[in-house]
């Protein structure tokens, strides 16, 4: 469908420049340029230029001109903003109202309504003047020249001679900025749009137009029987970005569609190591061959299915997910990263993490190097997730225990040496006696040997005490690590969505 603006562009060269610059956003794969869109872009760019130059009425005119070519609600919004800037509040209020009527589900509908209300108050006639005061000169009413419907062009451009708003009160409304516009279209239309990755689920289907946050975003377009395409774009508030992608046919890969009663379940294909690649309802291409699909969602029993993908085929899978009877233990908390969670003495996971456990009472230990263990017993109920917010307490350093142990070993070693001397002395005495030497009871070796033996015993005892002290120090604890328990219930309720019926989870936090 082609349409043409009833008003020629203000500057041909400028328009050509805009066209070239904006057209650059269209892919070279395009094979069906949209002339209306092209004209709309030109008008949009002209309007933005005028807006920047504070030629607000002109900007409003251009926005409306763009709307004539493409009835995007954002053009009406921008025109309203431009009118407001031009202090033509009647027109501003009117186009805000048209914006809402054109796009009732706009994300900023509430703000716009508030704006309309504010404008309405400003447009109220001022209170009657005191009798002595002269009557003010009547103000001409605003011209209601807005079209009745988005498809119908306005009867006439807003007359530039329209008097300003009758309100003499200064505008104190917060500033509204114009909206950028992103137009995404594809061939064939109806392709699913994903933003950044597929784990967030489908964003929309082509054709789509609307505003996106002014930050880089990766677009993924996917359609059954066509190869997926990706584009990186950076939406801006003063630009109309037109993305048109002609998808090429895919005859080799197989197309799968996975749905489940559990909407939003994470989808893993073949491995979980690289993370989830999408959520239910999931669509995508797969290489021909056997694949394993993992489907997981909290509150449900994980599903693992093996499928055979054939080239150029499209297969739909509807896999129900059983609600889980398990509970969960989640480890969180500042500094918990890297801590090991043991449930009933069995390693469960490395924090931050969550592990599924059978309902009942469980002994939980969270241990981390250099920190005191957190240990406790937790009653886990079905569908209840218990989060342990662990505040670790540092474990006393082991250096003192080690130095004490070394001291004990040295003392024990000294005791062993002195004991050896005592043994030597005793052996010498026995040998001399056996040899017939006149050993008498005043032999100095008796006293020496006794002192050596007693010294050895004392050293052994002392060493043993210090050793015990070392062990006690080694086993000593610092302040206990603490854990704050928080439980949230994950409930399930029937739900119906455009993709089918199912159960939705709800939580009490």
């Amino acid at each position: 469908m082609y349409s043409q603006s009833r008003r020629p562009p203000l500057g041909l060269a400028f328009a050509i420049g805009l066209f070239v610059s904006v057209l650059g956003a269209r892919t070279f794969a395009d094979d069906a340029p949209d002339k209306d869109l092209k004209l709309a872009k030109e008008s949009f760019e002209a309007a933005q230029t005028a807006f920047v130059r504070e030629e607000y009425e002109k900007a409003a005119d251009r926005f409306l001109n763009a709307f004539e070519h493409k009835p995007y609600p954002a053009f009406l919004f921008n025109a309203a903003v431009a009118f407001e800037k031009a202090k033509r509040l009647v027109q501003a209020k009117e186009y805000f109202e048209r914006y809402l009527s054109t796009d009732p589900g706009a994300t900023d509908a509430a703000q716009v309504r508030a704006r309309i209300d504010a404008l309405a108050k400003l447009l109220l006639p001022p209170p009657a003047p005191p009798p002595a005061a002269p009557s003010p000169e009547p103000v001409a009413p605003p011209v209601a020249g807005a079209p009745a419907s988005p498809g119908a062009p306005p009867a006439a451009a807003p007359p530039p001679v329209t008097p300003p708003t009758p309100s003499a009160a200064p505008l104190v409304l917060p500033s509204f900025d114009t909206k950028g516009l992103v137009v995404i279209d594809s061939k064939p239309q109806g392709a699913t749009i994903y933003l950044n990755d597929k784990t967030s689920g489908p964003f929309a289907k082509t054709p789509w137009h609307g505003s996106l946050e002014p930050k880089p975003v990766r677009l993924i377009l996917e359609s059954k029987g066509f190869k997926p395409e990706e584009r990186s774009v950076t939406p801006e508030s003063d630009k109309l970005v037109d993305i048109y992608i002609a998808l090429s046919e895919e005859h080799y890969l197989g197309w799968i569609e996975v749905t489940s009663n559990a909407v939003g379940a994470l989808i893993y294909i073949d491995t979980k190591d690289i993370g989830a690649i999408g959520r239910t309802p999931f669509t995508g291409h797969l290489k021909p061959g056997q694949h394993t699909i993992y489907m997981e969602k909290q509150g449900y029993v994980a599903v693992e299915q093996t499928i055979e993908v054939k080239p150029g085929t499209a297969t739909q899978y509807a896999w129900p997910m059983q609600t889980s009877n398990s509970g969960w233990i989640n480890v969180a908390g500042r500094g918990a990263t890297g801590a090991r969670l043991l449930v009933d003495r069995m390693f469960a996971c490395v924090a931050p993490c969550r592990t599924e456990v059978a309902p009942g009472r469980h002994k939980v230990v969270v241990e981390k190097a250099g920190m005191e263990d957190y240990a406790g017993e937790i009653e886990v109920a079905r569908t209840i997730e218990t989060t342990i917010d662990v505040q670790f307490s540092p474990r006393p350093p082991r250096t003192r225990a080690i130095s004490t142990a070394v001291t004990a070993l040295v003392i024990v070693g000294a005791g062993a040496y002195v004991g050896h001397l005592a043994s030597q002395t005793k052996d010498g005495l026995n040998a001399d006696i056996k040899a017939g030497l006149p050993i008498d009871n005043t032999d100095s070796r008796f006293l020496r040997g006794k002192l050596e033996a007693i010294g050895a015993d004392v050293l052994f005892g002392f060493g043993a005490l210090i050793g015990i002290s070392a062990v006690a120090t080694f086993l000593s604890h610092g302040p206990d690590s603490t854990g704050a328990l928080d439980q949230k219930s994950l409930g399930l309720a029937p739900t119906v969505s455009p993709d089918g019926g199912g159960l939705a989870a709800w939580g009490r936090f």
Partner: protein
Amino acid sequence: MRVTLGLVYAAVALGAGCDWRDFDSIQTHTPVLSVSAPSHFAASDDFGRYLLPLSGPAADSTGGTFVVSAESQAALALINVDATGQVHGQNVDAPALEPAIGGDVSLPVTAMAEVPGANQVLLGVPDANGTGAVYLMTLAATPTIAAFATPPTTAPTRFGLGVAAGQLAGADAPELVVASSSDLTIFLDGDATKGVTAPADPACPLVVSGGLSDEGKLPNRPILLAPRPMGLGEQLIVGTPATTGGNVSIWAVDATTGVASCAFSYTQPDAGFGMALALGDFDGDGVPDLLIGSPPSHAFWVHGPLSATSQVTPVTLTAGSGTALGASVAAANVDGVPGDEALVGDPDAVRGGANLSGEVHVVGGASLDTEQTILHRQSPSSSDAFGVEAHALPFCTSGCGTATAVTQNVPLVASTTHAFLFFHPELRSTDPRTK
């Protein structure tokens, strides 16, 4: 942590194996028992110079008992050695001694003799009061000492230089014999009023001549009682060293009057001949033989029964390193073989490089012609005079405290600081102590 606990356990186990009490066990059974002065002995560094073995223990737990007198002061101790070899010393409080010696506590008891059957010991203090004195010590839980007799009016010099006691006359109380440096007095029935002085007889000289008679030169002179042949009672054997040649005289005592008469005597050129006497059965014939010390270098023995014609035979001794070989003699069975060995002291011998440290020669064989071993201190010290006296202590091995007591003579050797009991003088000997 397991390693640490293992090391601690090993240390404790090793420590438990190092028991200081092992040394006590060995110490109480050393081959030689060195006896030092009991606590509070008046002269702790002057102990053991004069010894008197007592005939037998009074209690079944006592192995042997002997009396010790200090060398340079009036101090006595009674030493009991129990059957296991443990020493129990008892100081003898001797208030009676001090007045007798005029308050001069430097005058010691140098001569001692056990009074048989009386539980008494006759003490001689030859240098007391300038004339000498004799005391009787009664053995009891607390021994007492009383003056026995004053010197005869003839004022002999060094009364109490030699003492002895035994049944010399009649079956009454034993007679007490006191010798001075020149005569011999017999107190009949142990009665101080019945003293009979032996008449002088040139055949049996009693005068200690030369410098030996001076105070302090000869600490005592030996007197023995020995059975006479043919069952004729006891006879006295008196040693009389003299510068012109020593003499050992044998005296017969009249059973009624107590008068001693010279029977015969042995003499040798050595001045010190007769300075020490001992009886023992060296040849194993069951008859006591007489062993005579003859310093500075000899000892002799006379085969029993003694007679005027008996041969005085030198004991075979290797040359001593000192000048007093023979100053003390004793008889004891050291090797366990029938027949006693002669113990001959040489208190001046150089032992282990220590001058005057002393030693005791042990000579065995039927003719005392085999020197078996030499007793000495394990660590000789200078001027210790080990062997200045040598005795045989009857050490009870069974039936102690009864009439059927069995004893084994254990060498008892004096030095100036200790007394030594050789329970195991050589490898062949049997240790009489109970374990």
